[in-house]
């Protein structure tokens, strides 16, 4: 899975450079997020601008990241979600679980 990690202020911004998150690559995303959290990252924003498709396992991988960082009193947010992908968050009501920002700049500005 093509992922890019950068630090903006104290926030770890993980950009997913894939058009598709499904059961074939979601395990890798889940594992990557868990490793970030184990390394002590306290504040993660996942940037989804390139993602045009997500399935239930992809939502599960993000949910795992969210749960695990909150358990360590950290913060987790998503940004730049495409319209059709957003409809999956709405259908599963996960839009009420995640902190979601329209734009990465908003996420960084609000979260710092």
């Amino acid at each position, binding site marked *: 899975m093509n992922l890019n990690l950068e630090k903006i202020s104290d926030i770890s911004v993980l950009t997913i450079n894939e058009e598709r998150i*499904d*059961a074939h690559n979601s395990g890798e995303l889940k594992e990557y997020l868990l490793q970030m959290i184990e390394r002590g990252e306290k504040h993660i924003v996942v940037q989804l601008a390139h993602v045009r498709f997500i399935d239930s396992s992809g939502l599960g*991988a993000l949910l795992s990241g969210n749960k695990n960082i909150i358990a360590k009193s950290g913060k987790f947010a998503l940004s730049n979600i495409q319209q059709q992908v957003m409809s999956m968050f709405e*259908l599963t009501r996960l839009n009420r679980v995640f902190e979601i920002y329209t734009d990465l700049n908003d996420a960084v500005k609000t979260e710092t």
Partner: protein
Amino acid sequence: MCPSVIQVDVIIPTQTKYLDLIGSIGERIAKELDNFTGDREALAYQLNLVLTEATVNAIKHGNDNHPQDTVRISIHLFEQELNIKVYDHGQGFDLATVPAPDFEHPKESGMGIFLIRSLMDSVTYTRQQDCNVLEIIKYLK
């Protein structure tokens, strides 16, 4: 029923790397529907998702002892109906006992059947002679 306008039959190994291929077929079919008046982009996504989830389900319920096992996906497009059948050779499961998700305490897995049910008009899972069939129907308006 009228003969199908398009019939697509695909047989894949039980490997998740083929999910993209299967989902893409659904997306392309949505774009071929001449008389569909609804949101075509939404339907394209939904068919991609439903085929992806149904295929994952068949791979998961496939027989672990036979890595050469295959999943067959059969898509029939009729004038007013899209019919998807996904065949697996595993132990099968009871669709009626699949619980609805707990939205207050969401879990990392178990959303697949819920998504298929939410987006499509009919979902059944039946045992046939030597396989199980997940049949999904979407009425096209």
